[in-house]
């Protein structure tokens, strides 16, 4: 395969994800949240440059013991549960998590052992992708619909609640924040410990 064709395929594989980042960034512009919009915008540009070959190939991610990741996540969860919501300490903790997590995500995950039956695994993964993709798509469309319809008046907001409005009251007390922080960090540890490909093992 020529380098040009390989570059074109890389673009095709990256384009949907760059579009998703740009779309989320656009919603943040509508929300009048410039910082949030800038975060997604910068990420979209970085991935576009990467797909164009303008960024050097990343190194392999260092292996982080799962026990260490869970210990750090536990400290962060306690901090977020006890720190005032929307405060400086919560901002520093979540900001630090973001810097480390995105830096790790940029690097290639460690490889895993080759599959015994790659065809069967492919079929299972395809079915899971259709199922989870369908759930994610419905959730995003209803959330976007609610966000747009609920923007104009308090009555419309009541009729079309976004997930943020439904969860917001529960996050007002430390217990609610602790439950959210644990679930959020557990998902983060899951995302940062997967992606191991057998192809480059």
């Amino acid at each position: 395969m020529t380098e040009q064709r390989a570059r074109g395929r890389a673009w095709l594989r990256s384009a949907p994800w760059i579009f998703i980042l740009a779309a989320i960034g656009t919603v943040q512009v509508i929300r009048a949240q410039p910082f949030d919009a800038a975060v997604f915008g910068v990420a979209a540009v970085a991935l576009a440059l990467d797909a164009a070959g303008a960024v050097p190939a990343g190194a392999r991610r260092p292996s982080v013991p799962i026990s260490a990741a869970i210990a750090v996540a536990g400290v962060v969860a306690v901090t977020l549960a006890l720190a005032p919501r929307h405060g400086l300490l919560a901002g520093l903790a979540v900001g630090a998590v973001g810097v480390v997590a995105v830096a790790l995500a940029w690097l290639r995950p460690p490889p895993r052992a080759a599959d015994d039956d790659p065809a069967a695994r492919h079929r299972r993964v395809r079915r899971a992708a259709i199922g989870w993709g369908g759930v994610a798509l419905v959730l995003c469309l209803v959330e976007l619909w609610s966000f747009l319809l609920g923007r104009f008046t308090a009555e419309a907001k009541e009729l079309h609640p976004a997930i943020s409005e439904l969860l917001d009251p529960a996050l007002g007390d430390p217990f609610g924040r602790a439950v959210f922080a644990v679930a959020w960090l557990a998902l983060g540890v899951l995302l940062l410990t997967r992606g191991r490909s057998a192809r480059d093992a």
Partner: protein
Amino acid sequence: MRDVTIGIYLLCLVAAVLLAIGARVPRWGIGTVTELLDGILAERAPRVTLVLFWWWLGWHFLVGQTVDAPLAG
């Protein structure tokens, strides 16, 4: 309409639980979340997108502005 919207959110939650349980039933032939993530996150673009969106959820709910005021009234 509010109940319909909340109902759809809850249906999505139920579907997610069923998908997670279904992955444990071999004859259903559905991959687990970890198998799916290993497939998706092997490439940089989806890995950075999903990790960044996950991070933003924490920022949105714990640090940034969670609920937007309506434009009128």
